[in-house]
């Protein structure tokens, strides 16, 4: 069968991703174990009696060996039972789901800004290579790569929220009345994320496109008498997209960390800030659930990117 090598390649990636997730789950469990302080002690407070502590430990299963507790936690997680928050006394699953929905909205908005922006800037700078427009874009890209996202976010807040008063300084998504309101509230954090991602993507798009523009097939397309637009969009762009998809995957992967930072900048009630807050109050089930979820997303993104790159490559697709 022609597609057999392709399927095998894909299967290898899926197995590897699953294996990664398993290893990471061990790391997460182990890190959470190491969080200072004892869970039962934290729950009952300083002046708990030793008897009460022992009872609670037995109740929570904390007296069993770590390997056994890991197994139980993993099994429960796989069944969708994320347990009960120790601090807020509410089911972790509901809490995390609500926060994750907020985060996905923000991430989706950021990507919706980033993808057209990166494509347009990359195409423009390659098409006008060496001219003032290209140089302006290159400088902007260089600056975008040198300024970390928390600084970008704070500068945007300072200019657009505080000085110009165009957008709210804090992204309190729960106050949104309608879609317009939502986009208004989310605009600054989404833009912050998009700027950081765009800088890297434009750089790579430009380099790839310039390489493709010098290829014999683009030369021949030009010498066939095709309009410049058609040469750029039909012959050059599709062949520069493979690596661009890769950068986008790297960017989405980065986004999973970047969102933790940007949510903190804008006090956004998302999953990233939940992780930071949960670590600082040692809310073990929440930390475990959120860390595992973010890691799974990260691995899934990388896996999808691999698959897209494989599928986009005409040589691999045909199983040649």
């Amino acid at each position: 069968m022609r597609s057999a090598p392709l399927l095998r390649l894909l299967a290898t990636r899926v197995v590897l991703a699953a294996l990664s997730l398993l290893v990471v789950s061990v790391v997460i469990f182990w890190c959470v174990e190491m969080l200072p302080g004892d869970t039962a002690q934290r729950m009952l407070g300083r002046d708990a009696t030793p008897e009460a502590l022992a009872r609670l430990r037995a109740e929570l299963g904390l007296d069993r060996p770590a390997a056994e507790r890991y197994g139980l936690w993993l099994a429960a997680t796989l069944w969708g039972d994320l347990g009960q928050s120790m601090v807020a006394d509410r089911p972790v699953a509901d809490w995390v789901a609500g926060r994750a929905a907020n985060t996905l909205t923000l991430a989706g908005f950021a990507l919706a800004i980033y993808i057209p922006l990166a494509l347009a800037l990359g195409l423009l700078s390659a098409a006008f290579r060496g001219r003032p427009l290209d140089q302006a874009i290159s400088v902007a890209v260089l600056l975008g790569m040198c300024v970390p996202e928390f600084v970008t976010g704070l500068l945007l807040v300072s200019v657009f929220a505080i000085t110009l008063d165009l957008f709210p300084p804090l992204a309190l998504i729960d106050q949104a009345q309608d879609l317009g309101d939502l986009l208004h509230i989310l605009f600054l954090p989404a833009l912050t994320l998009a700027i950081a991602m765009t800088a890297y993507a434009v750089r790579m798009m430009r380099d790839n496109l310039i390489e493709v523009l010098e290829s014999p097939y683009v030369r021949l397309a030009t010498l066939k008498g095709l309009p410049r637009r058609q040469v750029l969009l039909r012959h050059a762009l599709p062949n520069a997209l493979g690596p661009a998809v890769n950068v986008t995957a790297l960017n989405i992967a980065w986004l999973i960390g970047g969102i933790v930072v940007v949510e903190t900048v804008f006090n956004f009630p998302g999953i990233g800030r939940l992780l930071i807050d949960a670590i600082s109050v040692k809310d073990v089930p929440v930390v475990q659930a959120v860390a595992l979820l973010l890691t799974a997303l990260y691995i899934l993104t990388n896996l999808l990117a691999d698959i897209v790159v494989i599928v986009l490559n005409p040589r691999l697709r045909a199983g040649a």
Partner: protein
Amino acid sequence: MAAAAEHAPPTAAPAAAPARRRPMAEAWALMPASGRVGLAMLVVYAAVALTGPWWAPFDPGKIAAGPPLSPPSARHLAGTDALGRDLFSRVVHGTGAVMWMSLSATGLAVLAGSLVGLVTGYLRGWIDEIVMRLADIMISIPPLIIAVLVIGAFGNSQTVVILIVALLFAPRVARVVRAATLGIVTEDYVTAAVLRGESALGIAVRELLPNVTGTVFVEFAIRSGFAIMFIGALGFLGFGAPPPTPEWGVMINEGRRTISAALWPVLAPALAMAGLVLAINLFTEGLARVIGRSPGPATH
């Protein structure tokens, strides 16, 4: 087009020639102006990091060195923060901590990564297979999430930050160095060394290492830029250097609470950080040009 390549006289970016030791003067001559500017900025940063504590006008922790949130002036070059601490002195004092943490973390990562990459690229076979799968798994861990967890578990200390960042970066370096090694391992001069009966270690050190040095240098330069931003983000989230250290990410986090009243407590450390990353980026690009290697896939 072919004719252009045929006729053009040798241009200024020769491919990394096998084991050709380039004198410093020649490297400097090949370095584009932007790279030289980057290097000059780095020298200034290093000088500030090393000597700053002796000439900074104020003690970085001195509260009420001036009125709180006072704007930049002759007395307080970068203004003061909400506690009236002198921001310029804090930024100057922080330079050492920032550079020490990021450079030593990157140094460790590059050292370990290069060694692993060199050995696996040379040996290939099942060892390579296993080590690279392990590296794949380590790379598939989201860096910031794991860093925050580990630092949460082991406490904020410069050592923990350095070690975790090194651990996260090392497999990425190993991949790049391994790819570079695979590219040269089939070259004739390596085969010749094998036929001469040189030991594996001898080949790795004498034949392979000199020819991946360029890759290793560029890798170090790229990664240190990322390390500064990464450690800055950790500091900003409260997982960086412990509080008395005037680390820039920590300062930015402190400054953001009063951002509606004053921008400079954020701006001063932010500019210092952006300048340092810019210097590294410019220098990296220049270095890559000298070595004849593209700076490689830029990832955060």
